[in-house]
């Protein structure tokens, strides 16, 4: 206990250590602040869109008397609300779409349109808490620990301190524990301070803190390992920064490259183009070219496939669906490719603790690939529900009524 107080005082007089810890605190606070701001902006945007979505639909519903037109002009907002912890690890919310405007037309193009619209997303790389904790914190820990003993050796104090401490335990461990602990606090306190008021649950924050602590403990182990060689401070620093570069930068980049090489992925834009071509071509094809594959999928409408006029809504919606059917293999390959890449990346992440910690935080935040795919699935399910709703009305040529419109499925976001 007296030893701890002694080392706390000693740490308090160590300006370099205080500087690194101060930077850690600042970086953590900034990342939490920016993350919260980003999520608040996403929420505000969503709230606004949800409101616009509702009022627009009311207007459209009053305008059209024909199910074909209603389905054509009615857009539905789908969205993935950020979790209360998403601020800490923006993850896929930075690179994949989390909101769509869909209608009962061909879906695949609508899903991947957003991909084509936001190509610059992935290039920026967000400064979030996960970035601060997983990438910057190890570097600061290295600066805090690399010369713990070597500096004393250089100053000729090493044997003196060790001999003086004798059996009471050397000061090295206490010094390391304090620095590691202080760094962890500099990260975790801002995380809790930002997360708790925002509604992130205590168990979520405990889990995230555990990830941060385990990751820092790993880097402590690396520092301790390098320390055993008894090198000088500059050599220690070089070795540790080298290890950081390898594990935090080079290995993750290598993982990305090898995952991309190992698991091929069709271009999201290709799905969009192929589907649009299929839909555009349908205009010039005989009606049967649309209705035959449509009925194959929907035998219940086999008795309604006669198209007598040059344009009929049911034919129009049928070729929209056939457009989706055309790109189904491509779309499935795209989804499976992303799942496959994510799974492989998850396994390879064991080679890079920073990457592993990043994945863990994104899983806790619900911003990982699984969450993104789950949202995409909700969009598909909702779109399918819309078709199920419109088809009987279109094929049986029912009259539009408020009561019938009232039965139209509404989109519900996860957790809403």
């Amino acid at each position, binding site marked *: 206990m*007296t*030893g701890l107080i002694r080392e706390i005082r000693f740490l308090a*007089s*160590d300006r370099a250590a205080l500087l690194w810890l101060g930077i850690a605190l600042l970086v953590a606070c900034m990342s939490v602040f920016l993350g919260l701001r980003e999520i608040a902006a996403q929420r505000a945007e969503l709230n606004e869109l949800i409101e616009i979505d509702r009022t627009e639909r009311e207007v459209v519903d009053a305008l059209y008397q024909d199910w074909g037109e209603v389905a054509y002009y009615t857009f539905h907002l789908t969205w993935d609300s950020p979790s209360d912890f998403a601020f800490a690890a923006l993850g896929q919310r930075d690179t994949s779409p989390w909101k769509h405007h869909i209608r009962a037309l061909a879906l695949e193009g609508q899903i991947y349109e957003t991909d084509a619209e936001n190509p610059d997303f992935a290039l920026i790389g967000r400064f979030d808490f996960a970035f601060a904790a997983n990438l910057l914190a190890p570097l600061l820990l290295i600066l805090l620990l690399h010369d713990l003993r070597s500096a004393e050796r250089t100053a000729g*104090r090493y044997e003196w301190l060790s*001999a003086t*401490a*004798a*059996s009471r335990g050397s000061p090295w461990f206490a010094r390391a524990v304090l620095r590691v602990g202080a760094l962890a606090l500099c990260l975790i306190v801002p995380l809790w301070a930002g997360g708790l008021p925002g509604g992130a649950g205590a168990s979520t924050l405990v889990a995230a803190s555990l990830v941060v602590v385990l990751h820092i403990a790993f880097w402590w182990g690396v520092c301790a390992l390098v320390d055993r060689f008894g090198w000088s401070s500059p050599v220690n620093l070089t070795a540790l920064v080298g290890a950081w570069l390898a594990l935090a930068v080079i290995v993750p980049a290598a993982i990305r490259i090898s995952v991309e090489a190992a698991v091929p992925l069709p271009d999201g834009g290709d799905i969009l183009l192929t589907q649009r071509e299929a839909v555009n071509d349908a205009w010039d094809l005989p009606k049967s070219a649309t209705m035959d594959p449509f009925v194959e999928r929907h035998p219940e409408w086999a008795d309604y496939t006669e198209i007598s006029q040059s344009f009929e809504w049911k034919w129009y919606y049928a070729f929209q669906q056939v457009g989706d059917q055309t790109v189904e293999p491509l779309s499935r390959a795209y989804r499976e490719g992303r799942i496959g890449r994510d799974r492989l990346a998850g396994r390879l992440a064991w080679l890079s603790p920073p990457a592993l910690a990043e994945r863990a935080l994104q899983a806790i935040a619900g911003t990982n690939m699984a969450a993104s795919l789950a949202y995409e699935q909700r969009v598909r399910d909702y779109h399918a529900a819309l078709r199920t709703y419109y088809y009987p009305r279109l094929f049986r040529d029912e009259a539009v009524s408020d009561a019938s419109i009232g039965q139209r499925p509404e989109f519900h976001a996860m957790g809403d």
Partner: protein
Amino acid sequence: MMSMLLAQALSVVRSGQQVLKDVSFSIAQGEVHALLGGNGAGKSTTLLTFLGFLEPVSGSVHVQGRYVSENVSAARQAIAYLPEAATLYGHLNAYENLRYFLSLAGTDTNRRALDEALDRVALQAVARGMRMHTYSKGMRQKVAIAMAILREAPILLLDEPTSGLDPVAIDEFNRLVRDLAEAGRTILLVTHDVYGACHVADRIDLLHKGELVGAFDRPPGMDRIDTEAVHGAFAKYAGA
């Protein structure tokens, strides 16, 4: 009488080079023992071996009768060590440095005890509260000596304690060493200062290239060892 410090046929190798060969001596309680020798003779190595930082390739060292290799922390606890070129923390003042080290040793000290020790090494009172990077070499050495006194360990291993001290301070230090010995402390002193060693030591061992090449005892009834004889022997080996 049990010997406080005992080296038996001690041989030590550092970086593949034999730096101590078959060194034997014994120091009883209350004795001041000086280890004299030129640069690289193996004096500091001897002290580090007593502290358990170096392991003998043959022979052994014992502290208070206990085999150091098997009782490193007991040996360290019994010893107050003053390293050569001792640098304290420059960003702390004398009090803070002393408190830090003494707390490390588990010694409780109040401000008055610190001041008494600093008085004994004659460190100016005005300097005591100043950060030690503002100190001269001798002032730093005085604080390091004060630390060794404050440890209240039965054994003192002092590596060139007078380096950097002015002649007056050296005289005071020599008197201090005698006082400590009379109070029952056992002192092994490494030095280049033939004159000082002759005045404070009960016995001087001359170390040359890792071997003991001469021993001089203070004759009974005399207050010092014959400086001429020691100087002659020292010069002979230094020239060799």
